[in-house]
C-alpha cells in the first residue's frame, strides 16, 4: 500500500499495540507502522541513534504517543520533540487511557496536535484511529523532511 506516511506508534502495552494495529489494519493503515515500547526507544528512533542508528533519516508522518511509558514518559518525549529543531514539526497525537485534565492541559501546552482518550468501545477507537491516521498520515501534507505521501 503506497501513499501513506510512516507512523511511529509509542506504546508499551502489547494488547494496545495489537488493537491499535488491528484498528489501523481496518483502514489499511497498518503498513509502515514502527512500534517502539518506551520513551527512550522512541527518542532513539527519532534521533536515529542506538538501535536505529542505521535507519533512513526521514521523520515519521505522525507519532501516536501513549503518555504512561516506562523509563521516559510520553510528555517528556513530546517535550523533546518540540524542542528539537529537526523534530518539532512532526505531528504528534497523544493516545491515552487518561481522562485527567492535567495530562490534557500539559499535552496541549507542549504543543500536541491532537489528544485522544482511548474509548472503552472498540469500534469508537477504530473510528478515532481511522480519522487520525487518515488525517495525519494521508490528508495532512507532512512537513518537509518527513516521509512524504505520494498522492
Amino acid at each position, binding site marked *: 500500500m503506497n501513499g501513506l506516511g510512516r507512523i511511529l506508534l509509542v506504546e508499551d*502495552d502489547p*494488547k*494496545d499495540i495489537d*488493537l491499535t494495529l*488491528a484498528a489501523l489494519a481496518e483502514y489499511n493503515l497498518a503498513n509502515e507502522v514502527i512500534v517502539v515500547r518506551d520513551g527512550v526507544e522512541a527518542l532513539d528512533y527519532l534521533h536515529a541513534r542506538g538501535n536505529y542508528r542505521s535507519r533512513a533519516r526521514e521523520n515519521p508522518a505522525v507519532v501516536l504517543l501513549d*503518555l*504512561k511509558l516506562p523509563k521516559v514518559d510520553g510528555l517528556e518525549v513530546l517535550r523533546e520533540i518540540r524542542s528539537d529543531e529537526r523534530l518539532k514539526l512532526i505531528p504528534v497525537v497523544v493516545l*491515552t*487511557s*487518561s*481522562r*485527567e*485534565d492535567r495530562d490534557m492541559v500539559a499535552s496541549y501546552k507542549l504543543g500536541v496536535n491532537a489528544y485522544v482518550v*482511548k*474509548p*472503552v*468501545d*472498540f*469500534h469508537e*477507537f477504530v473510528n478515532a484511529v481511522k480519522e487520525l491516521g487518515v488525517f495525519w498520515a494521508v490528508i495532512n501534507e507532512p512537513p518537509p523532511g518527513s516521509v512524504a505521501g505520494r498522492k
Partner: protein
Amino acid sequence: MSVRALRPYGLALLAIAVALGLGLAAERVGLEDIYRPLFIIAIIATVWYGGPRPGVAAVVAGALCVDYFFTPPRYALSFERQDFANIGVFVVFALVIGGFAARRRRVERDVHGALDNLKKEVAVRTRQAGLLDLTHDSILVRDLNDVITYWNRGAEELMGWTAEQAVGKRAHELLRTVFPRPFDEIHAELLRTGRWDGELTKTTADGKQVVVASRWSLQRDPDGRPLAILDTNNDITERRRREDDIRRLNAQLERRSQELEASNKELEASNKELEAFAYSASHDLRAPLRHVAAYAELLQKTAASVLDERSRRYVSNVLESAKKMGALIDDLLAFSRIGRVETRMTLVSLGDVLREVLRDVERETAGRDIAWKVGAPLPSVHGDRSMLRLALSNLVSNAVKFTRTRPHAEIEIGCRNGPSEDVVMFVRDNGVGFDMKYANKLFGVFQRLHLPEDFEGTGIGLATVQRIIARHSGRVWAEGVVDGGATFYFSLPKP
C-alpha cells in the same frame, strides 16, 4: 423690743409681785420679817430663769416695794440712812446671786453649743460612714494587732459576717487569708512605705474561696506612730476565673490547632494518595477494560459465524459489562475530580450554561417528543463554570432519561428567585418520578431507585450534582411522586 424679749422682765415683775403679796399676807398672820427672804427668792428666781438684766429690774422693783410697803414710814417712798444700808446689802446680795446665775447661764450656753457641735459632727461622720457602706468595695479597718475595728457593708456582703460578728476578731484568722508571700514581709513593707497592694485569697463565712485585689493603707497619729490599717478589697474571683478560663481555652485552642494542623497534613497526604490513586485508576484501570471490550468486539466480528446463539450472547454480555464498568470508572473519576480539583470561581450565566447543556442533549433526544420549557432569564451566580455545567447537565440528562417512557415528555427548567439570600434553580419533569420515602437515597453514590434494565446509569450522576453544589455552598433536594414526575432543586448563594 419683741414680746419674747419682754417676757423675762414680766417674769421679774411677777416674781416681785408674788413676793410682795406673800410678804403682806405673812404680815397679817404676824410673821413680820419674812418679806426679805421672799424678795431674795424672787430675785434669785428672776436671775436664774430671766438673766441678769431682768434681775437688776427685780432688784430695783424689790427695793422700791420694800421701802414703800415694809420700812417705816410705811406706804411712802421715803429713804432714810438706815434704808440705804438695808437696800445696799439687799442689792449687793442680789448682785452676787445674779453673778452666779449669769455665770451658770454662760456655762450652760457653752455646754449646749458644744453639744450641738458634737451632734453635727456625729451627723457628718455618720453620713460619711454611710457612704463607706454604699461602696461595693469591701472595707475594713484593723489595728496593728490585726483586730478588726471597722467593717463596712461591702465587707459584710462579700465575706458573709456582719459588722457585729467581725469587729473585735483578728482579721486574717477570721478570713483565713492566704498570702502570696510571708505576712511579716508584707507587714514590714506596709510599715516602711505606708501602703501595700496585691492579690489575696480569703475564705467567706460559708466556706467559699474568693480572690480579692487588696489595698492596705497605714494610718499614723500626728506623731507619726502607726495607728490602724485601712484594708480595701475588690472581689476579682469572677475576673480571675474568666482569666483562667481564657488561659485554659487558649491552651485548648493551641492544642486543637496543633491537632488540626496535624490532621491537615494527614489530609494533604491522603489527598495526594487519592490523587495518585485516581490518576492510576484513570490510566491503569481503564486499559484492561478497553482490552476486554475490544477483544470481545473483535471476537463478535470474527467468530460470529462459528459461535452458537448462546455463545454470542455470552460475548455480548462480556462487552456490555465492560462498557458498563468503563462508564462507572469514568463517572467515579469525574466525581472524585470534583473533590480534588480547585474551583475556578467566575461569574457564570446559568442561562448560557443551560443553552450549552440543551445543545448537548439534542443528540440523545433525537426522535423524542419533548416539550422544553425554560423559565424567564436565568440569573448569574459565582461559581466554577465547568462544574456548574456538569451539574446542570446531569440534572437535564436525568430528566430526559426518566421521561423516556412518556409519549409526550415535559421538562421545565427555571429559577425560583425568592427574597432569600439564595438563587434556587429547578429541573422538573413528568417522568416516572420516585417515592419520597427514598428521597434521602437519591444523592448517594451508587444509590439507584430503578432496575438497570429499566433505566441504565451508574448511580453517580446525582451524587456528582450534590458534590458540586456543596462545593458552591449550596444545597440540593428533590420532590417526586411515583409515576407523577420529579423536581430537582439546587440553591446557590446570590452573587
